[in-house]
């Protein structure tokens, strides 16, 4: 194996996150790109995962104000649609951590 390949292997290690973190910043989009119109306006956030990294993702199931520092957890949701007969893309979003009843 060449040194370059070794370096790439070291840099890109697979890792599974717990899927929990907090809102680091956020915005509400009024002008969405194609494929996201039916969800607009929607909330996009930078989520700081508990393990450290930031990730860009939508906040979903939003009812009420959002603040920097809010605890969130990952959920699987529909991200976008490519027209009436096109692909439906699923992926990760985050929602506020629900309090346990």
């Amino acid at each position: 194996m060449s040194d370059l390949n070794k370096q790439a292997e070291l840099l890109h290690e697979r890792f599974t996150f717990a899927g929990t973190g907090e809102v680091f910043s956020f915005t509400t989009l009024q002008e969405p790109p194609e494929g996201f119109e039916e969800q607009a306006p929607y909330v996009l956030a930078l989520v700081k995962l508990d393990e450290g990294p930031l990730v860009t993702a939508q906040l979903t199931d939003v009812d009420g104000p959002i603040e920097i520092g809010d605890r969130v957890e990952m959920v699987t949701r529909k991200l976008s649609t490519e027209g009436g007969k096109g692909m439906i893309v699923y992926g990760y979003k985050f929602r506020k951590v629900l309090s346990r009843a």
Partner: protein
Amino acid sequence: MRDVAIIGVGRTPVGEHWGSSLRMLAADAINEALKNAGLTQVDALYLGNAYGASVSSQTHLGALVADYAGLSGIEAYTCEAAEASGAAALRTAYMAVASGSVETALVVGVEKSTDTVGGARVMARNVSIDADFEAAQGATITALAAMLMRRYMHEYHVGLDVFEGFSINAHANGGRSEYAMFRNTIKPGRFAGAPLVSDPVNLFDSAPDADGAAALVITTAERAGDLVPQPIRIAASSAATDTLALHDRSDLLYLKGANLSAYKAYQQAAIQPSDIDLFELHDAFTILSTLTLEATGFAERGEGWKLAQSNAIGLAGDLPISTFGGLKSRGNPAGAAGVYQAVEACLQLRGEAGANQVANARIAMIQNLGGLGSTAITHVLKA
């Protein structure tokens, strides 16, 4: 390496050019720049264009534009680095001439942004953010700028109103230039209440998508002196990068690429930030102006906005910025923006800036960013 100078400038007004195509805009700017330099032929043409593929369904602009401008046969191709494409083309031309590979080169930045509207335009401009980890989540460049701005406001405990000076200054200067897209003035106190685009970014904060083309003719400094009375020397040319995705930055509120490219430029030109008479920075959003001033040595971290609180950034201030309106008022023709900055800086250094003239301008810095600083290309020009 040979010394390099700019000997011709040209530009179209910035706006919605529904009656002109990419090739027509580019040729208009090229013809003006060639005439300005007193030349009819060059050895190479380097184009800056960001969204030709996604807005105009057109790539391969080198061959297209060279032929349409009557220069068929010469070396010609596009340099792409999102909104920094124009500066990338200038730097490519600089390297070609400095190296001795090319004697005289044209640089043209050209963009047609307004031939699409709504979600299609947002989609077309979204190709320059991280497709897999940002665009796939529904992010846009404006939304990413908004999250950067909100975090800045949170960490430094400032309100939206502290950013208004950047837009007021840009529109005051753009109002004096017939080449600017939006020449209206913004009254103090009106900024924070403007309609939201992606909160906290509003209409008075973000630069408008625009059409336009700007061009430069460059050659060796030695040859330049024989051709024109006032060649403008390129004293520094440097490029640097930061992560493409905003979320991958270890220090979100610091424009590492802007810092690296500016300090390389200071070293090349053997100057300090305080030597600079005017700075055409990349004011696509007021948060970018703020963070740029912090990254390039004009303000401490968390205090870039303070320069916009005083008259420091005005035409008569210590550090005039956006002297022809910047991206905010002149308009943001994406891949052409960096070439407009260079044209405007040349006019300032020649003393040909008219109502926008900065008195006794000798040294100008221009910095063109791709996205939110993922690419940063800096040039220092000297009279």
